[in-house]
């Protein structure tokens, strides 16, 4: 049994927001006394994205990360401003190609770890690679025909 908690109403009245517009540049003037009683509408973009000017959306292609829950066609949210830590899922350029893998160690050596037994880990030592950004979220559509 999965326990579900209702967080609030999904706001359907606001205009669709493209990422660049979601920086929240509008600042209010004097606070109104009514503010304390007004519930905020939940803004998913503002909730998930901490660094708008450093955040990019990318499309996942392939099958090497299925056991980490990333499937072909999923939408990745990538933050370039974060320092990669052991265990992070990264977008990384390897030999000039952008790829997505988990950063981990085998023995004491850093590797890019696929999450699918039919793929091999990639040792980072001596590889021509550059971290592009840290994947903070993966948007995976569960219903056929919905946006993804």
């Amino acid at each position: 049994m999965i326990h579900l908690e209702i967080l609030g109403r999904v706001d359907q009245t606001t205009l669709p927001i493209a990422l660049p517009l979601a920086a929240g540049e509008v600042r209010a003037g004097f606070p109104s006394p009514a503010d304390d009683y007004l519930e905020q509408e939940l803004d998913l973009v503002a909730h998930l994205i901490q660094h708008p000017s450093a955040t990019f959306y990318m499309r996942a292609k392939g099958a090497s990360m299925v056991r980490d829950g990333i499937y072909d066609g999923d939408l990745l949210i990538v933050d370039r401003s974060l320092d990669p830590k052991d265990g992070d899922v990264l977008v990384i350029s390897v030999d000039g190609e952008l790829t997505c893998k988990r950063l981990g160690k085998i023995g004491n050596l850093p590797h890019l770890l696929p999450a699918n037994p039919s793929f091999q880990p990639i040792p980072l030592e001596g590889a021509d690679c550059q971290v592009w950004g840290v994947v903070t979220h993966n948007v995976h559509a569960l219903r056929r025909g919905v946006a993804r």
Partner: protein
Amino acid sequence: MIALVDCNNFYVSCERVFRPDLEKCPVGVLSNNDGCVVARSAEIKALGVAMGAPAHQIDPRIKRQCVLLSSNYALYGDMSRRVTDVYSHYTPDIDVYSIDESFLGFDGFEEKTLVDRCLALRRHVRRDTGIPVSVGLSSSKTLAKLANHLAKKQPAYQGVAMLPPDHPSTRQVLERLPLTEIWGVAGRTAAKLQQLGIHSAWDLREADPKRIRTLFSVVLERTIWELRGVDCIPLDDMAQPKQQIMTSRSFGRLTGHVNDLREAVRAHASRGAEKLRGQSSLARALMVFVKTNPFRADLPQYSRSVLVPLPHPTDDSRVIVRTAIAGLRAIYRPGFAYQKCGVMLTDLCDREGEQLDMMVEQQGIRERIRNGSLMATLDKLNREHGRGTVTVGIASKNAAWHLRGERRTPRYTTRWDELPLVKL
């Protein structure tokens, strides 16, 4: 102190963020109908491909080694906005000078902290956006520009150079600097100065300002003061980079009315188009920007720009005004007190060198001649009867951007169906 921050090979750098395979490879970006090269990587410069070179005239042996891309203005505009967003973490005082150059004001910051501050800014922009920038610091815009040049050319500076106006090192730099390297000093002026025994930037700095004003102009007198570290040339009067025409002015008073902004943008666009025709150039794209007054901390702040390609290289006031108004519509937000707006015509090319692209051919030679004479009449009326006698007033809603752009990369950051692909 003032910093001039400049994105290195901006269009190419934007492409490389999403195409790491293009790193270290000779890359050129072509104008929006694939006519000529408007941006070059260091590697393609080294191969001898000139700025503005028509693509079809590049030696095929060299061309084979290069990657030539169509311009992707949606991407460049979005990346430019991201870069400017990062600047705003460092100072509220930002003046966009071109698509890839901004002046940052650091009044009230301690001078000895500024180099470190700008090194941090540079790392921050690179990390967040992938774009490399160079920073030149000094107390005037002219010296900041020279410092920026040093930062770019000499690796020892690590991308940030400071020229304190009265420091011996600044003297050394100015003594070695030819006159034509100074912002706003053209070849003819330089030749005349040399007859007076003024050969280097340092010589000009030491010249008598009054004498220079009498012999040349107020503008050149101001350059002397600028070289001495006095910031006295307003941004709107700065000599323009060859590839752009900027027309902007601050409003007399702050305004939130869309009509005021629309009128101003219309006027700036018309004036820009007039300048364009005056120098026999065509523009391929334009940028519109609006900003509030950063020094009014009591008011909500907003600053935004948008880059819009023109349907074809043009000097036609009607097309330029219409495009600028469409750009304004995309960035205007109600509820702010705007201080300034402007229009920048960019990626210019010579009218003579313009290639007839399909759009223009369709437009028909006869109509082009008629338009040409209409524009000439318009300029004549404005010249003889005062600026603004005849202006372009009707804005049509049909702004269909029809670009050739066969080799355009995806609009990675502004279209859901063109996001960058990551291999799993």
